[in-house]
């Protein structure tokens, strides 16, 4: 992936195809090769002659694949860390002590039901703010602004709930119709049903995370949708075709760029004969294009890529499914959030 000395080493290893064995890692291959030369120097000349007899220099042939890393962007902001919650809560209570007092008569006309309701609530919670719990910024206990362990006041969900409850009670106290209770809809939960059920097919899961589409081949391997690039086809075109052929047309997607965001090289354990006569394939190289899904859902029922299942996974769930080598190649192009 990174060029430089690493790339140079790779080129060197590619130029000595006789030593390439996919079962041995690259650095071990190098040391083996070096030891070969060293031992050749110490050994007798006939073996040296055989080693310098130059293995037939043939370029290893790889299949070029185009893949699509289709992602769904996060739908909600991330969850706050406990420290961040505590910090924001502290700032709110500090702000109570530092700002000008709330000018009630500017907002509430004297003698109105809203005014009476406001007075009742202030008497109860000692402060105009609804989301900082029971706290009196002007009293002698104003210094005591820290939360006890286990209290929920710093939770954003709790604060939103308190706001909604306050709006509801105001609506009920000030309305003349006492027969029916006003209901204000709560914000939607950040944890969806798909999360609770563990439904990996749903796009409605893990809202604060980026999800990626992974497909399972009939042999059981998980991967990003990818297929060989055909003749006279660009990488982007091939990636889009792959997506349509594997996950169906019922998705509104957008391919981000014309350049791949990452690649994965897979060396076969033993070279295979290629489709064209006389060629041997040493492996396949997959280049991944970046894509976004706007609407729709994957559907493998009409796929032409020998796939049997798909999942929408966050980054940290992917290593459970793909091979370790595959994940180490693709992990740097996946978003942490």
């Amino acid at each position, binding site marked *: 992936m990174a060029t430089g000395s690493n790339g140079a080493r790779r080129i060197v290893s590619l130029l000595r195809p006789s030593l390439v064995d996919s079962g041995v890692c690259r650095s071990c291959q190098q040391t083996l090769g070096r030891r070969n030369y060293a031992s050749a120097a110490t050994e007798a000349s006939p073996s040296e002659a055989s080693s310098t007899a130059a293995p037939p220099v043939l370029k290893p042939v790889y299949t070029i694949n185009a893949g699509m890393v289709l992602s769904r962007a996060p739908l*909600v902001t991330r969850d706050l860390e406990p420290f961040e919650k505590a910090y924001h809560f502290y700032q*709110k209570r500090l*702000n109570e002590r*530092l*700002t*000008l*007092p*709330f*000018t009630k008569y500017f*907002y*509430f006309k004297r003698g109105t039901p809203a005014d009476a309701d*406001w007075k009742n609530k202030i008497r109860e919670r000692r402060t*105009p*703010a*609804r*989301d900082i719990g029971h706290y009196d910024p002007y009293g002698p206990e104003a210094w005591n602004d820290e939360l006890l362990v286990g209290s929920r006041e710093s939770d*954003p969900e709790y*604060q*939103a709930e308190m*706001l*909604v409850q*306050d*709006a509801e009670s*105001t609506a009920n106290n000030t309305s003349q119709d006492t027969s029916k209770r006003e209901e*204000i*809809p709560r*914000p*939607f939960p950040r944890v969806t049903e798909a999360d609770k059920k563990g439904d990996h097919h749903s796009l409605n899961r893990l809202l604060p995370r980026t999800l990626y589409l992974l497909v399972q081949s009939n042999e059981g391997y998980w991967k990003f949708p990818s297929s060989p690039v055909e003749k006279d086809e660009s990488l982007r075109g091939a990636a889009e075709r792959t997506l349509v052929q594997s996950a169906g047309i019922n998705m*509104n997607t957008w391919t981000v760029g014309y350049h791949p965001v990452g690649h994965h090289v897979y060396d076969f354990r033993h070279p295979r004969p290629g489709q064209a006569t006389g060629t041997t394939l040493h492996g396949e190289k997959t280049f991944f294009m970046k894509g976004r899904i706007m609407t729709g859902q994957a559907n493998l029922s009409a796929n032409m890529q020998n796939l049997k299942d798909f999942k929408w996974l966050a980054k940290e769930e992917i290593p459970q499914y793909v091979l370790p080598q595959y994940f180490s190649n693709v992990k740097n192009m996946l978003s942490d959030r």
Partner: protein
Amino acid sequence: MALHNPLRRTAATITNSTTTSMLLSSTPQTTGPSTAAATFICSQCRHATLLRRPKRPYTFTQLITLSDGSTFTHRTTSPAPVYRTTRDTRNSLQWNPSSNKLRGLEDDEAGRLAAFRARFGRSWDAAAAPPSAIAADPKDPVAQKAAEEAAKAQEQAAQEEEDNLLDLISSFGQEEASSGKKKKD
């Protein structure tokens, strides 16, 4: 003001009293008391001073609910705890160009609008109506009959190429009117 400054400045106006001449002992005698109009005596005080509240208005946390149900909180001077928007980026056509609902396109499922237009509509609507009416619903027997009739009329028109255009238009309009009557029944 004087309470808050740790460095207290006292302006002593020079008078002809003995204290001022004692204080100004360092100054040379050549400069008369009339030339040095005022001097400041600074003394440090270390007691706790009152911090003034900054002149910032009181702000509440408000929960904003957008028209699609997404929510966020922000700080505002408004004492209303919850605010529901009726129009925002979530139901504006400008931000949702692919939404047919927002674009105000009618989905004419039963073909009733098309039938109405064919009968009473303007000329260009009437001309465009038949294909949409045919495509509207193949299950409705009346519409299918009308479609067959229209197809027959088209065949006839193709056969009788020498018929004049006016004749064709008049027969076309009559057929439409008859199909409309059938629908009404």
